[in-house]
């Protein structure tokens, strides 16, 4: 039974207080010292572990399952979520999902729905979601539901883990990159207007505060995971003020972390280097649009959108999803989507919830199936369906 203080950014990621069966409290602290403690939600230490002390949600069941918000999204999202649910059920994972179907293209989106999802998220603090597709035609609002969700929860950091899968070889093997992308400002500010007929202006906003925040996140993440280098990606030779500010913020934060090497590289050179020699990079940090490009590029290097997990963090919430976010509408109903990315992301979620044993169980099972190579979905060159792959993972769970 665990209760947690979640400490606000920017200094550390977690402090746990664990209360074991005998009721003694063990404090384990991770991160840097000299920290400001600002408990955002105080949870009661009790043996009948109630998940949270707020009045909005009912108390959890006595066997302490964790409640997680689930938003399947569009395209193959629902199929992938089914895979996750089945694997969790077979593995007896103590997680209960609260499902919400929010979708702009299927006309299931409205302000009330969005607010329901937000309330649920605020209670549970952890979510797993698929991609909510953004249609190209817009009615009134320029910001899509996915962007609004991100902004309301202030999910400013998107982390994508690019790891080569053992047993599946691509042109570049043994890759191990982390891509950290600022998710709330930059080119995705949805501030556009037509100043004169035929001339459209789109504003890209860069602020010092958000740039510092993402830079600090990147360095903290690198410190926590034992990484040696952080590279900032930018285009400050052309956008001197905008990306120049981002670069300056990164450099300022880098001085606070003397143990971590800091470099910077221009986006077009970065793309070229990623396809020629990706091993020179370790952790990459960048503003919004470049993040989108590099996420997808790096995902392609290790096997595509079906194998890369990712997550989004705010100071208070964590949302787990795939790394390269595509609804993959062409695959709906055809049972060919690859559940690997979503399952690996679910395993990361379990680790975030401190269910280490279950997390390892799920991720080992997935990796074992891929390594054996007998059951592979179409995007990895095999002939199996999603359901067959999920079944193979389930049968590998107990071993």
């Amino acid at each position: 039974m665990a209760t947690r203080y979640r400490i606000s950014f920017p200094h550390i990621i977690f402090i746990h207080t664990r209360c074991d069966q005998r009721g003694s409290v063990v404090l384990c602290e991770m991160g840097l010292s000299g920290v400001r403690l600002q408990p955002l939600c105080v949870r009661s230490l009790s043996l009948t572990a109630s998940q949270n002390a707020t009045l909005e949600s009912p108390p959890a069941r006595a066997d302490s399952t964790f409640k997680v918000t689930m938003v399947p999204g569009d395209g193959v999202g629902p199929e992938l979520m089914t895979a996750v649910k089945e694997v969790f059920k077979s593995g007896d994972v103590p997680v209960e999902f609260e499902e919400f179907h929010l979708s702009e293209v299927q006309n299931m989106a409205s302000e009330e729905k969005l607010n329901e999802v937000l309330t649920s998220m605020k209670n549970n603090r952890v979510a797993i979601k698929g991609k909510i597709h953004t249609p190209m035609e817009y009615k009134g609002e320029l910001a899509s539901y996915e962007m609004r969700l991100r902004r309301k929860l202030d999910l400013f950091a998107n982390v994508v883990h690019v790891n080569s899968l053992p047993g599946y070889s691509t042109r570049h093997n043994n890759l191990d990159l982390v891509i950290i992308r600022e998710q709330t400002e930059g080119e995705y500010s949805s501030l556009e207007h037509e100043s004169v007929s035929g001339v459209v202006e789109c504003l890209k906003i860069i602020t010092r505060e958000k740039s510092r925040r993402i830079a600090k996140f990147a360095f903290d993440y690198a410190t926590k995971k034992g990484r040696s280098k952080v590279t900032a990606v930018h285009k400050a030779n052309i956008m001197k003020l905008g990306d120049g500010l981002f670069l300056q913020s990164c450099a300022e934060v880098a001085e606070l972390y003397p143990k971590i090497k800091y470099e910077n590289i221009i986006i077009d050179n970065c793309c070229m280097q990623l396809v020629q020699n990706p091993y020179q990079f370790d952790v990459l940090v960048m503003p919004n649009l470049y993040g989108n490009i590099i996420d997808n590029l790096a995902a392609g290097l290790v096997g595509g959108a079906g194998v890369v997990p990712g997550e989004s963090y705010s100071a208070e919430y964590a949302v787990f999803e795939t790394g390269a976010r595509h609804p993959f509408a062409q695959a709906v109903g055809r049972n060919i989507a690859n559940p690997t990315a979503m399952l690996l992301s679910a395993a990361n979620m379990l680790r975030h919830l401190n269910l280490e044993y279950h997390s390892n169980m799920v991720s080992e099972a997935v990796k074992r199936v891929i390594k054996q190579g007998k059951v592979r979905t179409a995007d990895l060159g095999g002939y199996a369906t999603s359901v067959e792959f999920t079944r193979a993972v389930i049968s590998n769970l107990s071993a």
Partner: protein
Amino acid sequence: MAGNAWRSTVSRIMGAVKSQTQPRTFSRGMQTVTIIPGDGIGPEISTSVIKIFEAAKVPIQWEERNVTAIKGPGGKWMIPPEAKESMDKSKIGLKGPLKTPIAAGHPSMNLLLRKTFDLYANVRPCVSIEGYKTPYTDVDLVTIRENTEGEYSGIEHVIVDGVVQSIKLITEEASRRIAEYAFEYARNNQRNSVTAVHKANIMRMSDGLFLRKCREVAENFKDVKFTEMYLDTVCLNMVQDPTQFDVLVMPNLYGDILSDLCAGLIGGLGVTPSGNIGANGVAIFESVHGTAPDIAGMDLANPTALLLSAVMMLRHMGLHGHAKKIETACFDTIRDKKVLTKDLGGNSKCSEFTAEICRRVQDLD
């Protein structure tokens, strides 16, 4: 700021109205081409290219010019008038790498050239070179990038301390112009499809406008297949299977990134050709690598990029026979691997590499 944008838009529209869009016909006689050797290794590789063209007996007369910026009347920086005159007369140029000035007071030369001749399209064909191994084989695509507006309009302001705003400008006129160029290029070079790369799901108005213009222009070119793809999908698929792409057309920033990505697929900037097409029929072909000051003057440079750009130039001028001859000679030399410069994996000198290509060109006659 909006006033400047409006004024430059108006001048751009006027320029487009005045420009001729018919292809030039070249006489059987000698055609003049302005050559700008550039800095660093520029002069060596330009000499190589001139030598190879002589060996191939190409009917071209070279006019060498320098484009170091000078301050014109009124205090505005401009390229020397002789250079401008020469280019206006010959309409075709070949440019080596130019040094980026730091603290020289004037803007980069590339930017000046672009503004002076309204070079609106940057074309980069990326073809895998046999003999120069990369993890990606069978790459054969062309990236066409809008070069005048978009994210690189240079319009930025500090709103309050700590908040900066950059403006990305998309106009109907420029989008239409680049789309038309892309389809014409596809038609003239027997390419099957044109793919518009955009992010209209996020930047719904600006990229939406670009996409709408591409769709409209596609209506007039029914013989070329038109598809549209999100930028992130293109990146994802490009590194997994680059053979599915043919001609890509896109606004400025995406073009910059994607064209460098594709250059990386075939081996880097040292072997990638590039051409800039302007209004009024002007075209400047260039090598996109740097000036490499550490090996300048030591006869170690690799002229491949400039040579392939010159071959692109010949094709643009209609001299397909000569273009094929020189290109074959160059690729054969690289494939044989006997005489290669250092960056390609050998240890020959630039002059030896050039001589080898000249020999092959003469043998092919």
